């Protein structure tokens, strides 16, 4: 899947690849120490934050797990 910012897709691909490898080969085998993808994530995140600003995507005031609370049943 492409990134929301066209310029970030390559960075996303690199980060995803790193994360998936770490998740499958380390984390799921109980090796949770170390953060091999942190640098890649930072670069990708900065790119996305810039794209969000440029595209005027309304991210102010968003709440975790959705806008309306109290969805029971």
């Amino acid at each position, binding site marked *: 899947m492409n990134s*929301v910012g066209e310029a970030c897709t390559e960075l996303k691909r690199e980060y995803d690849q790193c994360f998936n490898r770490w998740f499958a080969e380390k984390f799921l085998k109980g090796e949770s120490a170390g953060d091999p993808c942190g640098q890649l994530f930072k670069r990708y995140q900065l790119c996305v934050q810039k794209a969000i600003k440029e*595209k*005027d*995507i*309304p*991210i102010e005031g*968003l709440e*975790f*797990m*959705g*806008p*309306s609370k109290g*969805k029971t*049943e």
Partner: protein
Amino acid sequence: MPRWAERFFPANVAHSVYILEDSIVDPKNRTMTTFTWNINHARLMVVEERCVYQVNPENSNWTEVKREAWVSSSLFGVSRAVQEFGLARFKSNVTKSTKGFEYVLARMQGEAPSKTLVETAKEATEKAKETALAATEKAKDLASKAATKKKQYV
């Protein structure tokens, strides 16, 4: 955004709809929950979807998914029509997304969709229908709530 909805908005409005997804992986309860909703065009319509993936209680080799959706609109005068449109769209799209789901699973398992998967998909569709009905009720509820709110402003 549907064409008919464009006339409610200025001509220069962005046509893209941005979607946000939050997810929670709970290793203790062995569930994964995703919550997805649109973050722009929210005045026209907000569709929220929650999927809960969990181990089937009768067969621990199966994963079941419970999909729920809420459609709401605060567009003055036509909120009810917009909600019904959104709900109908959701219902027809659920079939497609279930097919996509099945396709990905079959690829991951390196085989054509097994009987189990087809059955699961059918079950999911049935569940989705039920949920969609529940969503209608919820939409009505939200619509009346929205109406109540408006009254307070007047």
